[in-house]
């Protein structure tokens, strides 16, 4: 059954090689974290945080730096999984679940299909534009500004508590019922739009009825 899917052959190689490479890069980081955890420098939540933060940043770097589009997409998967882990740390299991399902499943598969249908993996590709230096500068400055702002503030943080599924469900479907309905309209629009726009049109002269 797998053979029938129009997956390019290199996706297997990609996954294998990419996994290997990722492990090679990630291994020292994990080892360091493990050592720190073992020596008691890091608490368990902190260990998980740094692990996931590494995954997020590593995945994001892969997604924006790698020249191969499939690799970049896999980087996005990694980052998404990391974000899901962060959500778990923030006591939102539900959101973590959504994140894995929607991103790890839906979005990535969608992107890969898009890649394949536009045959963007064929041939050597130049993925980055010439304004890369500007982009680099802008990225650095933005990161600096954002991080600076976050660190400058004195947040009067409360204790993290778990929000139960039931409570969340009530809030989501009752208190925020209207935005929820509007969001469903957004999905409807996206659905209709994607189908209508991507559909191949009959050439002029062919039957005009839909």
């Amino acid at each position, binding site marked *: 059954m797998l053979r029938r899917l129009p997956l390019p052959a290199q996706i297997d190689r990609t996954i294998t090689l990419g996994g290997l490479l990722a492990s090679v890069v990630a291994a020292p980081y994990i080892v360091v974290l493990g050592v720190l955890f073992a020596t008691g420098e890091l608490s368990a939540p902190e260990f998980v945080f740094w692990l996931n933060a590494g995954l997020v940043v590593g995945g994001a770097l892969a997604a924006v730096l790698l020249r191969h589009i499939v690799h970049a997409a896999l980087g996005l998967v990694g980052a998404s999984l990391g974000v899901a882990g962060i959500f778990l740390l923030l006591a939102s299991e539900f959101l973590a679940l959504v994140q894995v399902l929607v991103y790890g499943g839906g979005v990535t598969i969608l992107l890969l299909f898009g890649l394949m249908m536009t045959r963007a993996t064929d041939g050597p590709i130049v993925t980055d534009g010439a304004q890369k230096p500007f982009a680099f500068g802008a990225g650095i400055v*933005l990161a600096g500004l954002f991080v600076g702002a976050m660190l400058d503030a004195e947040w009067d943080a409360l204790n993290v508590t778990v929000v139960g599924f039931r409570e969340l469900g009530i809030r989501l479907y009752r208190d925020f019922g209207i935005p929820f309905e509007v969001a469903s309209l957004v999905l409807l629009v996206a659905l209709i739009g994607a189908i209508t726009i991507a559909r191949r049109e009959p050439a002029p002269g062919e039957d005009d009825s839909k």
Partner: protein
Amino acid sequence: MIPLENFLVLSAILFALGFYGVLARRSAILILIAVELMLAAVSINMVAFAAYLDPTRFTGIIFAIFVITVAAAEVGLALGIVLRLFRERASANVDEANSLKW
């Protein structure tokens, strides 16, 4: 307990990386991926603020749910448009979609 700043800084870095991707990439799909990163950064922020700062706890989480939903919808819609464009021009590179200018 992990300080709130950790999450915020992570999110800030993720957002900046995403923005860098938008600026540097030339394939529409790669730009979409970068936008997804930016939106993920927003989700982290929302959830972190909800967990640490919001006495009601849940608004940020619900916000994040909506963000994820919209992000997924956006990918679908944008891919539809990319496909259409690809059919017309046999390219998914944004810099080749520049017949509209000045």
